């Protein structure tokens, strides 16, 4: 009787694992197979004669290449800005006793979770319109940076807090100047934290649809996220050959970055804001 119960449990357990695996895997299979098919369709077909022709089409298309470039500009721009500004602020917050520090950090974190998604996009839209930054890379970069900075400052402050101040003090006693200490000690020690924050920002901006969709107008500035969405032919039917290959190319950096950070830092740092 007990054995029977045990067997049934094992059976149930395995069925559940298979079912859940199928649930998560099935929609993704299309992304893995379709780009290599000669005639990609919405149906899932295993590429019996795998071809790279669809990728060739992507690279031959100015519009798609341009969209990738735009994604890179916006992602790197925001990443760069967030890393620099967040590191400076996080270091100051961590090391110097400033009046009202706790309150400021609290407000930042509060606002960064409250103001998310579309809720405050109407004023942002008008703000950019007023200052002439609508439909510009800079505008998109600034909006992303403003959104991710609180989380970045928070993560980095935690990180700097975990670095003992005796490193800096021992350099100070050894006779190093402030600049030398920043260059030789603080920067190398904070770098892993910066990488995490940078990767986080990069992935978020790279994957985000809403902000460029709302704040950009002209097609030559659109990043890949919005460009893919517009891949239809003249009569409005999606070009599946381009879409499938392009989607895979667009996804690969995100997956690669995930594998890299997950190996190096684990899941802790990856969670957080989702656009």
């Amino acid at each position, binding site marked *: 009787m007990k054995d029977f119960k045990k067997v049934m449990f094992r059976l149930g357990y395995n069925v*559940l694992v298979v079912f859940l695996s199928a649930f998560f895997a099935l929609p*993704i299979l299309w992304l893995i197979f379709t780009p290599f098919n000669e005639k990609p369709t919405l149906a899932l077909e295993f590429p019996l004669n795998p071809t790279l022709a669809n990728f060739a089409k992507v690279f031959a298309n100015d519009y798609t290449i341009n969209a990738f470039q735009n994604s890179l500009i916006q992602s790197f721009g925001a990443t760069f800005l967030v890393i620099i500004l967040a590191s400076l602020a996080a270091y100051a917050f961590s090391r*110097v006793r400033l009046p009202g520090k706790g309150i400021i950090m609290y407000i*930042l974190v509060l606002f960064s979770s409250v103001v*998310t998604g579309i809720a405050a996009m109407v004023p942002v839209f008008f703000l950019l319109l007023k200052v002439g930054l609508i439909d510009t890379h800079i505008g998109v970069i600034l909006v992303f*940076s403003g*959104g991710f900075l609180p989380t970045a400052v928070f993560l980095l402050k935690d990180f700097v807090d975990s670095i003992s101040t005796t490193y*800096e003090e021992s350099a100070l006693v050894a006779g190093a100047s402030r600049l030398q200490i920043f260059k030789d000690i603080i920067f190398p020690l904070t770098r892993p934290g910066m990488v995490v924050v940078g990767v986080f920002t990069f992935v978020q901006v790279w994957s985000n*649809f809403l902000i460029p969709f709302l704040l950009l107008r002209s097609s030559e500035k659109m990043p890949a996220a919005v460009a893919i969405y517009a891949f239809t032919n003249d009569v409005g039917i999606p070009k599946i050959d381009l879409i499938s290959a392009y989607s895979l190319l667009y996804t690969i950096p995100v997956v690669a970055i995930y594998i890299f950070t997950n190996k190096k830092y*684990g899941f802790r740092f990856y969670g957080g804001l989702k656009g």
Partner: protein
Amino acid sequence: MQLLSKKAAMIFILPGLILIFIFLIFPALWTFFLSLTNYSLLDNSLEFVGLKNFFKLFRDQRFWHSTIVTFQFVIGSALFGQTALGLLLAVMLHKKRGIMKELLTNFAVASWIIPSVVVVYLWAAFLDKEYGLLNQLLGFIGVTPRDWLNKFPMWVIIIWNIWRGSAFSMMLFTSALQTIPPSYLETADVIGASRWNKFRDILLPSLKNYIGTDLILITLWTFNLFTPYLLTKGGPGNATEIFPIYTYHEAFKYMQFGYGSAISVVILLINLGFALFYLRSMKGGKQ
């Protein structure tokens, strides 16, 4: 002796704060202001109208419809979906090894990290009436093909979001489970506790705080999620017009900025409630 003087520290902090203020805090406050105006690009008006937008909103059938749909979406996909499925995955895979575990976790994580635009295409292909994999598979067991996206739009976006987001909860709970000392479960084994007892008496209590955190975060994110727009455009009709899509339609499609802002204010206030709750629970968890 500090490396950084207070003045220098201010200079370090200021650029970041300015950016955050301009692009995060100020817009949120301005949304409140705009919601009290009749700002619209159509007739270029900007007049103060008091709470008129809100009165209109609360008499608007679409708003109440949107509220219900949002509620269904959040309860279904965040509460019952992601949190429950994430918990199930974390617990059933805890301390397990082998290819099936790797496969399951990796595909779950993949569905979480693939950019939303791509995910939308994947699901459009998966659900397609004529060619979609789902209908093909169901065909094997004799189910006639259906246009899932148009016939069951709410179900689709709920299940889609469960698929999309469960990995986060799973990973959160998995890392929480790893902090439970193995001796707890070993002691339970020694005294002969059943699986259910171990789950209820050891795993669940250790996860309690994490479940709270997870629920708040997931709910907040789901509540603000715009991506279902790419799948359904809020339709058919306004069947899946959740709050973010409703806001988008009013503000950016019909250019009713004052009215759109009123909806945004409702969203922001609800977010504020969640966020305060979240920060409170974080503080409690630390003690």
